[in-house]
C-alpha cells in the first residue's frame, strides 16, 4: 500500500519529466516530426472537408486496455508494467496524441487481473465490452496472456504483448508479439556460453515443473547444433532448504558454465552457494525474475558477472536510454525488460492508430499487421526493427544477451546488440 502511495505521488513528476522530454524529442528521435509528416495529408484532407476541427468537436480519446496483475504473486512486476504503460501513454499524448484522429489522446483502461487465470478471463471480457477499446496490451505472465489472447481473438480486438510463449503465435489473427519468442531464448543462451569458452561444458539444473522441464528440454535439444556439450542435466525439487548438495553435484560434473532454470528463491541460494564453495563457473540465469532490478537488490554484488537473456534492454538505443532515464528518475530503478518493451508497444499502437485513422479494432488490427518501423520509440528493441509476419511474430525479433555489471544490466550479445564488453568473472 505504501509503495502504491509513493508511486501515485510521483506520477505527476513523471508527467512533468515526460513533457520536458517531449519538447526535446521534437527534433530527433520519435518524433513529432515523423508523425506530422505522416499525418500532414490527413490533416489537410480533414480541414478541406471540414471534418473534425470545423465542427468544433474535442477529439474523443482512444481507449487502450492494459491488463496487468497488480495484486497477487506477480504484483510487483505488474505494478512496474502499469507505471511504464502510463508513462508511455503520457509520452504519446504530450507529443500531440493521434493526429489523424484530430489529436485524440490515448486513454489507458487499466485492469488488475490479480495474477489469476479466471480473473484474467473475466477482466479481459469486461474491458473489451465495457470500455470500447481499440486495442489491449498485457499481461506479463505467458499463462495469463494466453487467456487474454483467446478472449481478444473471439472479440476481434488486437492484443499486443511482450509475453514469450510460442503458443501466442499459433492460430491467432489479432495477437501481435514484437519481441523474441521463448524458443529463441534457449539458442541465445547456448551461443552465449561460447563467449567464454569455445567448447563449453554446460550443467543444466532446473526445477521439476512444467516451466523448468520445457525450458531445459529446449536447451538440451539445441545444444549439439550450437557446439555445446551438456555434462549434467539435473531436475530438482523447487523450494529447497539448502543448495549445497546440488552445487556439490555441479562441481563433480566438471562443468564450466551453469544454466539454472529456477525461480528467484532457489536462484539466490544457488548463487550464494557457488560463492561459498569457491566454484569457478559462469552462470546464466535466463530471463524473467533474473533480469529485474530486484534480483540485484536481493543478491547484491554477487550478481555481478552473471549472464541472462532478455527480450528488451534499456541500453539498446538512444530512445531506450532516454525513456529509461525518465523512469529511473521517477521510480528509482532502471526500466526493466517487460516494462521497457511495453513503452515500445504503446508507440507501435500509436503508429497503427495513426495509419488506421480510426478507433475501430478491426482497422487497428489491419494497421498493426502492416506495421514496419525501424526508427523512433516504436523500434526500440534488440535489432531495432519491427515488422509482423502472418503469425503475428516480429520477423526481426530476437533476444539480447545481458550481464549484470555493477548493479546495472548491460547488453553483451549478439555483437550487433552489444553495448558493453563482456565482464570477465
Amino acid at each position, binding site marked *: 500500500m505504501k509503495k502504491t502511495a509513493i508511486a501515485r505521488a510521483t506520477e505527476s513528476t513523471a508527467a512533468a519529466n515526460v513533457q520536458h522530454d517531449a519538447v526535446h524529442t521534437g527534433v530527433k528521435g520519435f518524433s513529432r516530426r515523423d508523425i506530422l509528416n505522416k499525418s500532414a495529408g490527413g490533416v489537410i484532407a480533414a480541414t478541406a472537408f471540414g471534418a473534425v476541427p470545423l465542427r468544433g468537436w474535442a477529439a474523443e480519446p482512444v481507449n487502450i486496455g492494459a491488463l496487468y496483475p497488480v495484486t497477487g504473486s506477480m504484483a510487483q512486476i505488474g505494478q512496474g508494467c502499469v507505471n511504464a504503460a502510463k508513462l508511455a501513454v503520457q509520452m504519446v499524448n504530450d507529443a500531440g496524441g493521434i493526429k489523424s484522429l484530430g489529436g485524440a489522446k490515448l486513454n489507458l483502461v487499466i485492469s488488475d487481473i490479480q495474477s489469476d487465470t479466471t480473473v484474467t478471463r473475466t477482466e479481459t471480457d469486461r474491458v473489451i465490452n465495457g470500455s470500447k477499446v481499440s486495442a489491449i496490451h498485457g499481461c506479463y505472465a505467458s499463462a495469463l496472456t494466453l487467456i487474454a489472447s483467446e478472449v481478444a481473438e473471439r472479440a476481434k480486438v488486437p492484443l499486443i504483448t511482450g509475453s514469450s510463449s510460442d503458443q501466442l503465435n499459433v492460430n491467432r489473427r489479432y495477437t501481435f508479439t514484437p519481441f523474441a519468442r521463448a524458443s529463441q531464448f534457449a539458442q541465445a543462451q547456448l551461443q552465449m556460453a561460447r563467449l567464454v569458452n569455445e567448447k563449453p561444458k554446460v550443467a543444466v539444473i532446473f526445477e521439476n515443473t512444467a516451466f523448468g522441464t520445457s525450458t531445459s528440454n529446449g536447451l538440451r535439444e539445441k545444444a549439439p547444433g550450437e557446439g555445446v556439450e551438456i555434462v549434467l542435466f539435473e531436475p530438482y525439487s523447487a523450494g529447497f*532448504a539448502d543448495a549445497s548438495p546440488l552445487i*556439490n553435484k555441479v562441481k563433480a560434473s566438471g562443468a564450466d558454465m551453469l544454466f539454472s532454470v529456477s525461480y528467484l528463491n532457489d536462484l539466490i541460494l544457488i548463487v550464494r552457494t557457488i560463492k561459498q564453495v569457491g566454484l569457478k563457473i559462469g552462470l546464466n540465469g535466463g530471463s524473467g525474475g533474473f533480469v529485474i532490478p530486484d534480483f540485484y537488490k536481493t543478491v547484491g554484488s554477487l550478481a555481478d558477472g552473471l549472464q541472462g537473456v532478455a527480450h528488451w534492454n534499456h541500453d539498446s538505443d538512444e530512445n531506450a536510454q532516454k525513456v529509461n532515464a525518465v523512469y529511473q528518475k521517477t521510480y528509482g530503478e532502471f526500466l526493466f525488460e517487460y516494462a521497457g518493451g511495453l513503452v515500445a508497444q504503446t508507440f507501435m499502437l500509436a503508429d497503427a492508430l495513426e495509419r488506421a485513422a480510426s478507433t475501430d479494432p478491426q482497422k487497428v488490427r489491419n494497421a498493426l499487421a502492416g506495421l514496419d518501423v525501424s526508427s523512433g520509440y516504436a523500434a526500440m528493441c534488440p535489432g531495432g526493427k519491427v515488422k509482423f509476419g502472418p503469425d503475428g511474430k516480429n520477423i526481426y525479433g530476437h533476444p539480447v544477451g545481458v550481464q549484470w555489471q555493477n548493479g546495472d544490466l548491460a547488453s553483451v550479445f549478439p555483437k550487433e546488440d552489444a553495448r558493453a564488453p563482456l565482464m570477465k568473472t
Partner: protein
Amino acid sequence: MLETLAQAVINGLLIGGIYALVSIGVTLIFGVVKIVNFAQGEFVMIGMYITFFLATRFGIDPLVSLAVSIPVLFLVGMLVQHFLIRRVLGLGDMPQIFLTFALSLLLMNVALLLFTANYRTVHTGYSDESIHLGAFYVPVAKLIAFGLAMVFSGILWLFLHFTDLGKAMRAAAQNPEVAMLMGINPHRVFAVAFGAALALAGAAGSLLMPFYPASPMAGQVFVLMAFVAVVLGTLGNVTGALVASLMMGIAESLGIQFVGADSGLIVVFLMLLLTLAFRPSGLAGGRGR
C-alpha cells in the same frame, strides 16, 4: 568419489542442525503439552523477520539479534499457550489441529500483507565465506548455525534433566494428574514448554538469516522436515528428534548427490516408511521424552 561423498555428508550434517532446532521445538510441545504445533515453521519465519529488520534498520548482526529473537519468541510462546492453546486442551484432536493450523495460515498471510512476498536477505561478512580444508569446504555461516543449534539443544537437555522446572515439565508430560497432586501447576509448565519451543524456532530464524532469504513462506520449507524428524525420532523425544534431524539432513544430501536432485526427499521418506514399518514408535522406541 570419496571426496564428493564426504562433502555431501558435511553439507547434510550442517543443514540437519537447522532441522533439529525446528523439530526439537515440535517434539517438546508434543511431549509436554500433547499438541501438534503446525505453526512452528511460521515462528521460524517470525524469527527471520525480526533478524532481518534488526539488521537492516539498526545494523545488528544476526548472531547478536539472537538476544532479541529468543526472548521475544519465548514470550510469544507463553502468550499463545495461555490465550489460545489452553482453551482447546482436553477437547480432543480436531480443535487442536484446527487451532494450530489456522494459526499457521493466519501468520503466513499477515506476513504477506505486512512484508509482501519479496525475498529479504541479510549480508554479513561471513555470509558467503567458507573454511577450506584440503578438498573440502565448510561454509562459515552454516557452521556457526550448526554449532549454536547444538549448544541450544544441549542447554534444553540440561534444563529438562537438572532443573526443578525442567523436571516438573517432564513430570507434567508423563502424568499431568499426578504432577498436579505433587503441587505442579501444569499450565505454568505448559507455558514454559511452549515458550522454550518457540524460542528455539526464533533461534533457528536468526541463525538462518545470514544464508537463507526470509519470505512469508520460508517456514514451510523447514517444517516438513521437522515433522518427519519428530516421527522418526519418536514423538516427544528431544534427543530422538535431534539425532533424526541430523540423519535426515545427511540422507537428503546423499539422495541429491547419488540418486537425483529431485529425489532428496524420496530418500528421506523412504527412511520414514521403513522406520514406521519396523519400529512403529520411532527410532528411540517407546521412550517418549
